[in-house]
């Protein structure tokens, strides 16, 4: 931001980094939240249809226009980064609106034209504003804006080409633009890494479009009876979720700082030179090492690649150990079939809810317990901690029966929440409820152990300093320990996510209906006593592990750090 105040440090002060939560991001958050709600509604109910008489179509189209104007507002109030975010988001909205309104006939086309025209106008306007401010924003006719504009132009042209409806059949043009755009954006990000974040937003937008295109193709190829709008909304919701994550990550507001002459900050980045330097730094030993590591990495990826390849085959191809699918395009239908057959619409949301609740509960209990074991001296601390560790040795099969008896109310440890606030009742039965699926896993000896190990490394001097400032344990934990322990907490989060996401036996035992069954139980539908529908199982497995992969990539650095610093490596 050009007008940011420059702080000049003296002997008593230092430069602090100000993290601002821009207005534009809040608006984006609202957008995203609305779409996520739409996602939840659509995937939970599966009741939308694209029938032109369906009331949801015009409502959603109108909503898209409304949000388009809100997006324009965000452009006018945001910083450069959020301006880009808004632009990318608006493109998604435009396509979304187009998809929804395509069954509205001529009026739908008018809606599309209106949305595209308004968005294009605001896009140019916002770029002009940024340029007028003298910020480091994208020039009006910079590559990013050109790409976005190109997409919009294609969208508008698509309306005219199709004559009667917003032409999904012509969306191959979008795919072409997406392909070219992603390549350009990637190259730009290499040349201008300082702007990679903005370009990633564009990539996200383009990726969403590609996703919509593929989804449409799947609908056509797989001969789905009626285009399932709930799934399209789900895709849009997924994109919105990604945007929300981007939006809530605090970022430094651009500001002018003094740097020495000749500082690397003033030099332009030379990617080709950097790559050349990297190659020159490789010795024979390093080359051999890299070759071995590359081979090992490939080997470790073989099962994953096999899963993807198999998910695009017929059952017969898999049974005959084919390496590649003969018809991968038709193989995409396996995903549709797997999604429908295993009731993933419901199970996916169930897994999200179950995992989220479990992680939240587990973090609360584990952080408090770990802090107590690490930082508070009390009688029997080590003994209790040892007893806690012993529980790690008890196999799951041994605890299953007691756990089952507890959640069915046969062991009087479940407090009543409704019948008697102060009593303990014997007939409480949590079978087939969310409680039975989450509560037993909201405390974990392993998580406590891992966090305790990390907390123990925090110097006691910090606690003493906190005491001098009048702080207590809770303040010390929240304001000092938790920020420091972020890697360990993320590690616990990831591990809990994986175990919760992959849980099978317990959810199967404590559920009687589909209401709260998670994804893994859905996967089981592809196996029976005489064989397995491997092609569907692999497609379903890919759908199931995708969130785990995304979470892992998002927390990879912190995860590695957390494992390394809590004594668990090796």
């Amino acid at each position, binding site marked *: 931001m050009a007008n940011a105040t420059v702080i000049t440090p003296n002997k008593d002060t230092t430069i602090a980094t100000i993290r601002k939560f821009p207005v534009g991001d809040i608006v984006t958050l609202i957008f995203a939240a609305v779409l996520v709600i739409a996602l939840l509604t659509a995937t939970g109910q599966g009741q939308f249809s694209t029938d032109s008489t369906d009331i949801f179509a015009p409502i959603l189209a109108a909503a898209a226009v409304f949000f388009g104007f809100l997006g324009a507002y965000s452009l006018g109030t945001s910083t450069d980064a959020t301006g880009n975010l808004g632009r990318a988001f608006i493109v998604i909205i435009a396509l979304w609106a187009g998809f929804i309104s395509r069954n509205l006939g001529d009026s739908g086309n008018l809606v599309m034209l209106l949305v595209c025209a308004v968005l294009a106008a605001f896009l140019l306007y916002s770029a002009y504003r940024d340029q007028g401010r003298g910020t480091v924003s994208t020039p009006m006719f910079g590559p990013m804006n050109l790409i976005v504009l190109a997409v919009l132009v294609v969208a508008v042209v698509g309306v005219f080409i199709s004559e009667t409806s917003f032409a999904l059949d012509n969306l191959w043009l979008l795919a072409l633009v997406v392909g070219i755009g992603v390549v350009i954006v990637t190259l730009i990000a290499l040349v201008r890494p300082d702007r990679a974040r903005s370009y990633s937003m564009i990539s996200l937008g383009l990726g969403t479009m590609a996703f919509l295109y593929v989804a449409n193709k799947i609908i056509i190829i797989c001969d789905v009876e009626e285009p399932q709008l709930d799934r399209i909304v789900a895709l849009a919701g997924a994109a919105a979720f990604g945007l929300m994550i981007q939006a809530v990550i605090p970022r430094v507001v651009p500001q002018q700082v003094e740097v020495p002459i000749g500082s690397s900050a003033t030099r332009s980045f030379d990617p080709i030179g950097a790559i050349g330097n990297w190659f020159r730094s490789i010795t024979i030993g390093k080359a051999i090492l890299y070759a071995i590591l590359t081979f090992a990495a490939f080997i470790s990826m073989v099962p994953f690649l096999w899963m993807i390849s198999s998910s695009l085959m017929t*059952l017969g191809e898999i049974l005959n150990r084919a390496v590649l699918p003969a018809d991968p395009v038709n193989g995409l239908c396996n995903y549709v079939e797997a999604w429908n057959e295993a009731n993933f619409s419901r199970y996916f949301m169930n897994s999200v809810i179950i995992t989220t609740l479990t992680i939240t509960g587990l973090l609360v209990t584990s952080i408090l317990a770990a802090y107590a074991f690490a930082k508070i001296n009390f009688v029997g601390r080590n003994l209790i901690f040892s007893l806690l560790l012993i529980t790690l040795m008890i196999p799951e*099969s041994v605890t299953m029966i007691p756990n089952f008896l507890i959640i069915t109310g046969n062991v009087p440890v479940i407090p009543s929440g409704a019948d008697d606030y102060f009593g303990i009742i014997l007939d409480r039965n949590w079978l087939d409820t969310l409680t039975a699926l989450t509560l037993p896993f909201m405390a974990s000896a392993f998580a406590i152990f891992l966090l305790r190990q990390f907390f123990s490394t925090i110097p006691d001097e910090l606690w003493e300093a906190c005491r001098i400032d009048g702080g207590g344990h809770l303040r010390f934990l929240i304001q000092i320990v938790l920020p420091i322990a972020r890697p360990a907490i993320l590690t616990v989060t990831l591990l809990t996510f994986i175990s919760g996401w992959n849980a099978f036996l317990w959810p199967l*035992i404590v559920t009687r209906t589909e209401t709260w069954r998670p994804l893994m*139980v859905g996967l089981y539908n592809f196996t029976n006593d*005489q064989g397995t529908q491997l092609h569907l199982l692999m497609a379903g497995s890919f759908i199931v592990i995708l969130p785990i992969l995304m979470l892992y990539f998002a927390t990879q650095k912190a995860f590695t750090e957390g494992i390394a610093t809590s004594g668990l490596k090796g």
Partner: protein
Amino acid sequence: MKKFALLFALVLVLIMALPATAQDDVDMVYEDVDPTGATVEFWHQHSGAREEELIAIVDEFNATNEWGITINASNQGGYGDIFQKMNLGLVEGGASLPQLVVAYQNQAATYQLVDGLVDMRAMVDSPTWGLSEEDKADFFPGFYSSDIFPTFGGQRLGFPPNRSLEVMYYNIDWLNELSESGAISFEGAPQTPEQFREASCAAVENPFSGATGDTSTSVGYQLSFDASRLASWTFAFGGDVFDYETGQFTYDSEAAVEAMTFLQGLFADGCATDIAESFGDQTNFGQGVTLFTVGSSSGFPFYRSAVEDGANFAWSVGALPHTTEEPVMNLYGASVSIPRSTPEQELAAWLFVEFYTSPDIQARWAEASNYFPVRASVADSLGDYFAADPAYATAFDLLQYSAAEPPVPGYDFVRDEAEGVMAAIVADPSVDVAASLADLTATANDILADQ
């Protein structure tokens, strides 16, 4: 092992709970019971097309039954998962159990250790609600009697809605090649163990010309280590793995020893191999590198896919080669049992079972599931299906030669033991088959005694 430990713990707890939960064995008379408006939870293991058809059958019953009974059918995992859930439910007291459940005979026997199931004789034989003599006679006798438990005083703890048969899958084209080249001395499917050995060993030296797999791995027979396979081969050699008079396992019978010695010899001569991956025999059979496999008839769709996308040869099924005059085929399949609930729900569950096993519904169910129907008259409705699927028709003709594995509690654990012994015997030609099977018999009877 983990699964075994859990199941074992469950059964132990069940046994410990026995004195507390056992009820007086009083025959319930259902004549005056009114099932109107009853709701029945039905736990099953079916998925995919089978589940779709089952749901359609349930929906039809719900829409047409005169009592307003509602059946809620739901997949609760595989057989093992349902067994675990049932055991946990019985330990817990039974409140969380369904009113109708799929159960193998040995599983039903385990439930009955704590009097968890209804003796269905009172319903089947009821003048008001039961089957007519004509209907009873329509059921295949072996099927009809398979859920009557001598170890529980002749109680009927289940009722069969379908059955499968352990059959031999064979590559017709390859056998023809072997016969035409003079590599074997007979035509068609092998009828005796010696013919089976002859073809199996010839297949190693004479790979199938149309094979799509690696012909250097051609083999006559691929064996999966499974207690049902052991029982099937024992039946084929004229014996049984259980003595119903003494109530003891007889894995050390002469027929069982002969059968396992035969298999051990096939392995030693390189004419048979074990299966390295789950359902790998289906894959290798489809690629034309395995001449024979033995498996359930309900696996037809998987074999068909493997062959059509593989070597695409002519194939069929037949009886296991046998030393007996007539084939003796291992017949198995889960029945449906009625856990104890209210008389109204118990009767409602039976009325659905009666509908489920009626001829028209059986014909639909057989076509959708690839299982065999349990009533002989259903064959009349399956003419087109037989024509479209000759292998199914061939297997159907073998139903008359059926025998069953022992319906005793603890058989799940015995099965695990049997698989281990089978693997040990065929892995090492020097292993004493008789001694190994004697040990297995002792272990199996110990497990039985613990129930």
